[in-house]
């Protein structure tokens, strides 16, 4: 992929905020101007040229190389183009994202895709907590877009999520889909405790039955959910990396809840849990 390549030239000790480095902003800037951009670094500032070696080609693509978990807020507010991250990355990747694509070839921190309203995020590794969640003090989390994690995810996935879709090919931590307003979360391995805690609406699809389902979720029995045929076909159409969805049967055990919060949400547990289906291998 040709575009601007930022290779980290030092080992940061503090969080380095890369939110100014988004495609639409840099498109109109010269390389000299880009080099002079001041980034928040711990309590102070750091110029881009002191943090990165830059190779430039003008288009909407950005690549961060030798990334570490100290790099935060990559792709914040971006609305177009592609950002590829090679290595691990810190918190708030794709925060308030409005479009475009972010691909992480490594592990990512917490609050990835929080408050995003459009766009696509793919992580070929694990992620932390509050994936697609809400910013502190905000009522709603991600309001649209698509996040796919090929590894495992932390706690509170999709916390306060409003719309959009999160697919986790690995396992999810505790409180998956907590306080969801709506949207869809699919976990193709095991989810932790308190799935769907306080969810109002929305759908959580689990490939494996969790150890415990709260008493505020009521069984609706085993059903063939017509809607899942549509959902899985549409996801499978998004690319070869989602071929796994072609194999999944729409038969589920449906639980409606959280009845403490009007109970319009649902947990769908795939039957017969599809033990034979191994989560797909990651793709670049």
């Amino acid at each position: 992929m040709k575009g601007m390549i930022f290779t980290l030239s030092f080992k940061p000790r503090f969080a380095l905020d890369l939110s100014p480095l988004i495609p639409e902003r840099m498109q109109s800037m010269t390389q000299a101007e880009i080099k002079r951009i001041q980034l928040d670094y711990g309590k102070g500032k750091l110029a881009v040229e002191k943090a990165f070696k830059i190779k430039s080609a003008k288009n909407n693509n950005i690549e961060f190389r030798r990334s570490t978990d100290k790099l935060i807020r990559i792709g914040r507010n971006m609305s177009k183009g592609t950002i590829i991250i090679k290595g691990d990355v810190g918190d708030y990747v794709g925060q308030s994202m409005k479009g475009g694509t972010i691909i992480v070839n490594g592990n990512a921190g917490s609050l990835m895709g929080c408050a995003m309203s459009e766009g696509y995020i793919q992580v070929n590794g694990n992620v932390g907590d509050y994936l697609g969640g809400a910013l502190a003090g905000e009522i709603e989390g991600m309001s649209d877009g698509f996040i796919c994690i090929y590894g495992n995810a932390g706690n509170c996935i999709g916390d306060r999520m409003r719309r959009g879709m999160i697919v986790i090919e690995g396992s999810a931590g505790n409180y998956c889909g907590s306080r969801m307003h709506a949207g869809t979360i699919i976990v193709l391995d095991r989810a932790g405790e308190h799935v769907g805690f306080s969810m109002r609406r929305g759908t959580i699809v689990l490939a494996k039955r969790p150890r415990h389902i709260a008493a505020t979720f009521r069984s609706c029995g085993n059903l063939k959910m017509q809607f899942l045929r549509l959902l899985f076909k549409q996801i499978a159409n998004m690319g070869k990396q989602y071929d796994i969805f072609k194999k999944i049967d729409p038969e589920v055990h449906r639980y409606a809840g959280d009845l403490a919060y009007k109970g319009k949400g649902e947990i769908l547990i795939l039957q017969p849990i599809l033990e034979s289906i191994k989560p797909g291998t990651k793709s670049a």
Partner: protein
Amino acid sequence: MKINGVTIDDTFAEAFPMKATRIIITAMSLKWAYMAANSIRGFASSVIACGIEGDIERELLPEETPDGRPGISVMMFAMSKKDLDKHVPTRVGQSVMTTATTACYAGIHSEDTISLGKSLRYFGDGYQISKVINRRRFWRIPVMHGEFICEETTGIVPAIGGGNFLVLAKTSRHGLAACEKAVEAIKKVPGVITAFPGGVVGSGSKVGSKYKFLGASTNEAYCPTLKGQVKSELTEEIGSVLEIVIDGLTEKSINDAMRIGIKEICKFGTKKGIYRVSAGNYGGNLGPYHFHLRNLLK
């Protein structure tokens, strides 16, 4: 101009602008998709009294449908967006939603839309669920067979209605044999429908009537029983006139459908009782689209 002895009149078909939409009906099997499709296209032969004109466009393979089940695409035409918005959701509600295992999706994606599930969702009585997948909103309406899935809206596009040609034959039996073949051939043209029963009109009309309350009445100039009574367009040997009316998304699709249809008709020739092909027009005052028979057969 003559083809296989059949005279092609030097006249034109007069067509007018319409609005069209396409919906995709899927079901557990093609048989049940057809149940819904046949129901929704029933009583949709002419805007004169049905509100809309509609017909099955074609069968869809599972890989062509949004949910991977067998499906049918149905096209519906009306004089305005308002008419489509009034009739399509009603028909989907009564004909598709009531058919077991069906789902209904948009078949045209455009900026201009009419509602589908947007109004039908209320049938869910508060238990309906909205899902946005790839920027398309679907409604999941809990029903007794499971869930009825319906896309929120379907796109509408400008279209053309009223492309037509008349088949002047020795008897109805001769005319119908030729028309059946023509309709079969027209069905293979993408983006067109023949909304009348079997694709053939047995009672073509003219605009207006001696009765003030009637907007359309029998086209006496082409009625064989009135040959000696009125200023007839028919010669002695013609005993039956059938019409094929074509609605299409573009001028080209109607052109293609008319050409293919007329050529099929002409294959029968005078020996099999087909004498003339003509077309219905109203002196050019009704619609801006004129399909000259001889031009399109060149």
